């Protein structure tokens, strides 16, 4: 045990000659390998539950080599459908481009890029929600409440979106976005305040806030905010509050994605180029040290939870204003936990979050296609995500599997319940 630890210690000693680009590639290594391992294990699950593979195993004594083509076929069909469903086929895109340039007819091109734009549409709320969790991590706060904040943000922007009538879009749209951000911010600020004032741990409180949000939304959607009609959904938002779409109708790609990239850049600028951002990172790295240096730890807790909630609220807003245009029950399903996975995979860096959100968007939107084409339940994505989180959080496993030596600085994410 001690000898092993010693070798690990020498491995993790930062090298003095390490230059920046090498550090950059090394920081990418573990996430990339984690995703790769997750996909491989997902492939094993797909193969293990495939009928063709089972049949080949039944025929094992007669044709022992036959299982390999069967496994290959199962996995290739599944992942082929996944990537075809999320990225589209290059051949169709080139064909579409050719037709568009020769005749000006966009229909074929739009059909070809539809899967890819859907992936970007799916990635949009992930970017916001991932940023929310990542911002919390940077300050040593674990925001498990992105789910509830997402839901409240969606309800807030839907309310502004449908209740105000007759405003021009350049007033209504920003108001609706703001409505989502404020609703999410309030939902995040409460646990932040409780943590700062009473030391109540934000993990439990954000989980509680999630459940309160679900109950509240149950009530709102069946009562005050219910549209006339049978289903418990809000009324459709006004045209002026919609995030404009780039393409004609089946394509839902909208300005929300651009907004998300912009916000990601803003978060980056805020965290790494401003004094406040430095304070937040200082508090996250070492609260006692930050306090000793004269920074207000508690103020930063409240600030970060509020901003984090606002970001998660924006995720909900972008989904309502850009894609769905109304809110129903179970609207936020899974975004909260997925965003934690995103933030971890992206190492709490805005660029990393954007990249992992794109990856999750591709996986999630492709999985729908995989379900219909290859008959593999969409939940395989959750299995892969869970595995990826484990690998990202335990780089030692990845190092052990791939026999690599990486100098990683482990970051502390949370500190128990009490402190």
């Amino acid at each position, binding site marked *: 045990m001690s000898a092993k630890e010693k070798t690990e210690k020498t491995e993790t000693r930062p090298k003095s000659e390490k230059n920046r680009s090498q550090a950059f590639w090394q920081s990418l290594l573990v996430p990339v390998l984690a995703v790769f391992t997750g996909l491989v294990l997902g492939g094993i*699950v797909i193969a293990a*539950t495939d009928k063709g593979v089972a049949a080949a195993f039944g025929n094992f004594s007669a044709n022992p080599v036959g299982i390999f083509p069967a496994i290959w076929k199962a996995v290739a069909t599944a992942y082929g459908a996944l990537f075809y469903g999320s990225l589209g086929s290059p051949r169709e895109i080139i064909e579409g481009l050719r037709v568009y340039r020769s005749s000006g007819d966009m229909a074929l091109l739009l059909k070809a890029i539809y899967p890819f734009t859907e992936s970007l549409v799916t990635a949009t709320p992930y970017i916001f929600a991932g940023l929310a969790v990542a911002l919390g991590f940077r300050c040593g706060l*674990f925001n*498990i409440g992105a789910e509830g904040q997402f839901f409240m943000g969606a309800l807030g922007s839907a309310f502004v979106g449908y209740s105000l009538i007759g405003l021009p879009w350049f007033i209504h749209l920003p108001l609706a976005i703001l409505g989502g951000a404020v609703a999410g911010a309030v939902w995040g600020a409460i646990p932040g305040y*409780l943590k700062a*004032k*009473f*030391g*109540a*741990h934000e*993990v*439990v*409180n954000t*989980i*509680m*806030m999630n*459940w*309160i949000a679900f*109950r*509240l939304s*149950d*009530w709102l959607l*069946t*009562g005050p905010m219910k549209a006339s009609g049978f289903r418990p959904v809000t009324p459709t938002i006004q045209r002026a509050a919609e995030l404009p779409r780039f393409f004609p109708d089946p394509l839902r790609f909208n300005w929300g994605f651009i907004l998300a990239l912009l916000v990601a850049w803003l978060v980056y600028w805020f965290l790494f180029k401003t004094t406040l951002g430095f304070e937040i990172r200082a508090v996250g790295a070492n609260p006692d040290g930050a306090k000793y240096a004269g920074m207000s730890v508690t103020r930063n807790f409240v600030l970060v939870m509020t901003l984090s909630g606002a970001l998660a609220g924006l995720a909900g807003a972008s989904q309502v204003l850009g894609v769905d245009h109304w809110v129903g029950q179970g609207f936020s399903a899974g975004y909260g*936990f*997925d965003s*934690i*996975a995103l933030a*971890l995979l992206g190492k709490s860096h805005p660029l990393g979050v954007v990249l992992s959100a794109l990856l999750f968007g591709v996986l999630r939107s492709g999985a729908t296609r995989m379900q219909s084409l290859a008959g*593999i*339940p969409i*939940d*395989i*994505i*959750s*299995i*892969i*995500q*869970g*595995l990826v*989180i*484990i690998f990202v*959080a*335990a780089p*030692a*496993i990845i190092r052990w599997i791939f026999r690599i030596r990486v100098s990683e600085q*482990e970051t*502390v*994410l*949370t*500190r*128990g*319940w*009490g402190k």
Partner: protein
Amino acid sequence: MAAENLSTKIPSRKRIATGIALLVIGLLMSVFFLPGTETGQTATFGLNLSSSAAILLPDMTLPVQTSLYVLVLIVVFMGAYHMARGIRSPGALFGVVAFCFVAAFLIWATRGRSLSLIGMLTSSLVRATPIALAALCGVISERAAVVNIGIEGIMLIAAEASVVTASLSDSLYIGLMVGILSGALIAALHAWLVIRFKVDQIVSGVAINIFATGTTSFLSSKYLQHQSDLLNNSGTFPIISIPLLSKIPIIGPIFFENNLIVYLMMIIVIVMHIVLYYTPWGLRTRAVGEHPKAADTLGINVYLMRYVNVIVGGMIAGLGGAYFTLGSVGRFDEVMTAGKGFIGLAAMIFGNWNPLGAFTSSLIFGFADSLQVKMQILKVPIPSSILGMAPYIVTMIVLTGLVGQAIPPAADGQPYEK
């Protein structure tokens, strides 16, 4: 003078604020509940589960207005007394006031009608069972300083594993064993990740939750839904009446007419209390949770203690998972645990990290749950989803430390390095 100061340890400003809050609660009770009542109206509470019980108790019929006045007066008196003299036990103060409030609410809601009180308390215990098992899992692992937020996922996997094996083997007991073992297995994975690899404990728990949700839903839609007769149809444990004890009025039908898993839960509560506080093992567990370095110096194997406690916790959570299928409906549905694991964590904190407290607070959560259902039946003009928020809000209030206190084990959530 000195004695006066000693008897009132609570700072007086906080005391006055609490007192005023109580007075406000009393006022709110009278404003909310009294206007809807009429003089001479009564509320009837049934005290027998079935009309064939050996000892039949007469129904409890309360005059609505008089009872409400009495309850409001108790709350106001408590507030005034607390301001003037100070009540030293915040738990007792909070408990009495909460009791008065709930009683007033129940009397108000049942005015002019009748409600089976015993039926409601029975269903409270039944609804509290999975919450209590989750809370007990939390207590035993967090006493050894390992935070397990993946209880929800463990219960989900155990629920599915137990129903499938029970259906295939046609034996509920084999299903139960497999459920418990699967819980132990996932908990062992959690322990391995957080102890051997020092993965952040909450991150590992979150990963387990996502992984469990994915795996169970994947298997459910791949297999269980297509062959539900073969794989997803186990039946449930029958209700066992304990001879003699179940004949006791009120207590009998609530505690001694249940199925196996509910009894096991109550046994685990008692056993865990004894083990934690009266055995060397419990002392070592608590030492590892409070000050692992000191425990290590005294020759206690910190890692081993943590592994065993987390795995035993996983077995308890596995039992809780089996409750959802074998103890309740006999079939698995996707995401059927519906957050009970997280509520269990809240019950653990509410119960101050000890088994009896965790059990009591689980009962409160179970009661709130069954109250919500009853209110829908009684057609109370308050939306049931608003009532459903109460347990979560209460948990958050408790976490602030203003009423009662929540003190986690000192080393909770921190990896131990030799």
